[in-house]
């Protein structure tokens, strides 16, 4: 079955990549950035003793005054892997994820077009994505309208067997960004995505009549979300950011996510603090345990009802002159700490640091 799906999917994937004219990345419209090199290092640890070390590099470089290239390469090194691995590997099991993405962005007057793709590979999962998006500014750049589409072909491996399953995810979005006043800007974003194919988690087992069995979930899922975001400048070099996201899908999982943050500019420094709260219901087939012969059953904690809080502290340092006496004016350092706490008992902390070096415009 996987082979026939692959045969059908390959031409679609190729077509999506070839016809892509725009890029969308994790909900953000790709826009031409100032040319720069960003080197980052992220560290993650959680209450299960899983640690992830993740170096990454971003390059934004323009070829001409209208065309630029954006590339990103990263690695996640996972150690002391999670309880689902410990079941069979008492000494722990390491994993790695490598990913690379690239996009070309071209400007035609007030319109930006981009095309790109991403490839991600880890021990038991592979994802290939083509991304397109377009954005146009109006009204002296006070209004930006954007839209985009992405197509992903994901291949989970049903470890410990060698069998690969297949999953197709398609995502579309439209976004409107509007400058409201000299101190206020807002954005509204609508996303719709459809996922077909294997969507269970081969590493988590549900309790069915006392037996632990890999879950079975529907092979189709339609997801929708609306996000409203506001940025407000306050007196005294202080800034407020507020976001709200409403999510719903046809597995009856609904979620409300709020975030509120404050930033303050000191000479050469920007300090920020953000609080995010996420509340979600469970999927309609979720239950702590199952009896009889349920059509669908799951032990995937992502489909449980829960609430989580995320606290973020961030500092950005951009000296007036050279950084470390070597890097050019405009180079800066970023430090970020996050703490995540969910009612499922899961906790995680991340520390990230990175530096950004501006590159010369052509």
């Amino acid at each position: 079955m996987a082979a026939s799906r692959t045969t059908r999917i390959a031409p679609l994937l190729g077509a999506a990549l070839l016809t892509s004219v725009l890029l969308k990345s994790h909900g953000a419209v790709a826009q031409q950035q100032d040319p720069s090199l960003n080197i980052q290092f992220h560290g993650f640890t959680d209450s299960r003793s899983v640690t992830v070390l993740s170096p990454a590099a971003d390059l934004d470089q323009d070829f001409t005054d209208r065309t630029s290239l954006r590339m990103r390469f990263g690695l996640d090194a996972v150690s002391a892997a999670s309880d689902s691995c410990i079941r069979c590997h008492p000494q722990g099991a390491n994993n790695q994820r490598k990913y690379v993405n690239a996009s070309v962005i071209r400007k035609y007057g007030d319109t930006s077009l981009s095309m790109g793709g991403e490839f991600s590979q880890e021990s038991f999962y592979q994802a290939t994505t083509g991304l397109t998006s377009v954005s146009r500014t109006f009204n002296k750049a006070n209004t930006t309208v954007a839209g985009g589409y992405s197509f992903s072909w994901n291949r989970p491996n049903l470890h410990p067997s060698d069998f690969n399953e297949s999953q197709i995810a398609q995502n579309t979005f439209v976004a409107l960004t509007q400058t409201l006043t000299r101190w206020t800007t807002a954005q509204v974003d609508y996303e719709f995505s459809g996922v077909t194919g294997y969507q269970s988690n081969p590493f988590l087992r549900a309790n069915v009549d006392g037996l632990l069995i890999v879950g079975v979930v529907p092979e189709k899922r339609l997801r929708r979300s609306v996000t409203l975001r506001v940025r407000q400048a306050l007196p005294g070099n202080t800034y407020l950011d507020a976001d709200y996201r409403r999510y719903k899908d046809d597995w009856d999982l609904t979620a409300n996510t709020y975030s509120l943050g404050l930033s303050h500019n000191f000479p050469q420094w920007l300090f920020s603090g953000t609080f995010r709260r996420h509340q979600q219901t469970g999927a309609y087939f979720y239950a702590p345990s199952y009896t009889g012969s349920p059509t669908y059953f799951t032990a995937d904690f992502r489909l449980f009802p829960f609430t989580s809080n995320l606290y973020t502290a961030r500092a950005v340092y951009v000296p007036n002159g050279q950084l470390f006496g070597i890097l050019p004016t405009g180079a800066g350092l970023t430090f970020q700490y996050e703490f995540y706490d969910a009612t499922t008992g899961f906790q995680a902390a991340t520390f990230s640091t990175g530096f950004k070096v501006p590159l010369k415009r052509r």
Partner: protein
Amino acid sequence: MRRLTIALALGLGVVSVAGCATVEPWQRDRLANPAMQFDPDGGFAAFRAHWQEAREGASGGAGLQGGGCGCK
């Protein structure tokens, strides 16, 4: 779905009505501050989106789901 549509319509309405005001380029000094950007640092946001997607069923949606046992 109806609520989503209403929320979207309200959001678009508010933004559109308020959008009649034009801010000139020389009036945008506060708007240009990095704290006013919606995605000031994509790399940090991408890392957060990846691990959140491994924990929250309502996160993500852009199709780049990770799935190895390390995340589970």
